[in-house]
């Protein structure tokens, strides 16, 4: 099974250079856990960073002070050893298909999350310190849809389990949809299995269905 919907190149580049803000870095890295092709792409972008470092001019820099080397070594050799890498925490079967780094952010097993239900959609918000942004895990009941909506900003959605379809295509595990303000869509989970997604939004969604337009001003989504 191959992932066919990837993050746009600008997201991978900002991830590789280290400038991507946390909620976006979280969703990109979680996508990469499910997408060897994007891991290769980021490795290539890091190689560009390596080449730029190699080419960084030495001219104008003071000659390397060998005394500085000796001072650093005596300091470094006095440091305590690096802490051992903690073993992976045990995973229950419900959560086993959620890859790190997202899994480390979940406060509980997938079955025990404090889901908030609204019709066929259950939601858990994860902590997010980027102002105006929201990070949530969604669970859409099999065969059911999210209310039709458009976006005030960007919405990135990564499928973790199950699959969904909307006007733009069919999204399987590992696929990422990038919705911009122009997209008006109604994602529907495929029958057979609930669809679990990670979604990052830069502004609230705007409901656009007939009923949605009436209730939109009162919802916090």
């Amino acid at each position: 099974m191959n992932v066919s919907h990837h993050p746009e190149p600008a997201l991978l580049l900002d991830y590789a250079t280290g400038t991507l803000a946390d909620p976006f870095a979280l969703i990109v890295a979680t996508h990469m856990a499910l997408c060897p092709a994007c891991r290769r792409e980021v490795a290539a972008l890091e190689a560009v960073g390596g080449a730029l470092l190699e080419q960084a001019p030495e001219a104008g820099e003071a000659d390397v002070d060998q005394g500085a080397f000796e001072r650093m070594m005596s300091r470094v050799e006095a440091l305590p050893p690096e802490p051992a890498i903690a073993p992976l925490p045990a995973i229950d079967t419900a959560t086993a298909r959620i890859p790190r780094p997202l899994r480390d952010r979940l406060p509980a097993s997938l079955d025990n999350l404090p889901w908030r239900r609204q019709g066929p959609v259950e939601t858990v918000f994860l902590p997010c310190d980027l102002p105006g942004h929201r990070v949530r895990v969604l669970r859409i009941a099999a065969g059911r849809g999210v209310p039709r909506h458009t976006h005030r900003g960007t919405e990135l959605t990564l499928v973790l389990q199950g699959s969904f379809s909307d006007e733009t295509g069919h999204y399987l595990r590992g696929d990422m949809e990038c919705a911009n303000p122009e997209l008006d869509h109604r994602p529907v989970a495929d029958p057979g299995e609930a669809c679990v997604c990670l979604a990052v939004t830069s502004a609230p969604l705007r409901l656009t269905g007939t009923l949605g337009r009436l209730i939109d001003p009162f919802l916090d989504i």
Partner: protein
Amino acid sequence: MFDGGGNSDLGGPCLDAVQGFMAAGDSPGREAPVASHEDDLLAVARQRDREAFRRLFTHFTPRLRSFLRRLRTPEATLDDLVQEVMTSVWRRANSFDPAKASASTWIFTIARNRRIDLARRKRPEVDLDDPATLHEEADGEPLPDEQASHGQMALLLRDAIASLPADQSEIVGLAYQRDMSHSEIASELDLPLGTVKSRLRLAIVKLRTAMEGLD
């Protein structure tokens, strides 16, 4: 096939590194063969080799200084930052895998991650050992010449970076060396975000094409 001998005009430390790399296995009779940075890192990882680390320190310290200075780094903290990066190189050398990256790429990622730490940000990372991580079916079969290909790729990249048009190389420099996101570059250069994105994308496509010249 890449012809290493056809690039004798390149000169400089990069070529030394690659020649050292290539010479390491097949010309033991040469006077004072140059150890590649990759060999030196492995010697640090396996034997805690201080002389190998001294060579890495001498090579990378001035480059890190000029690379990191262009970030929004106060001069006073530059020495500390470079020292911390080199400290991590010494202490974490055993996580360097020459099949995955060249020494300079690995050191670039250490410097990048240190900068993220300093900004008190988290960096979400893939864990390749996580059972939920998906792998390619061909994973675990590294190409026999994969190590050499990183050295060759560095040369191809060096040429490709040098031949970027000025407007593209400026933006690539801002993205990698000044720690700026696409939207920060757009406001710094007073360009529309779309223009920044398309110039960067063009530049990256050129660099990626150059790297794929190896395949």
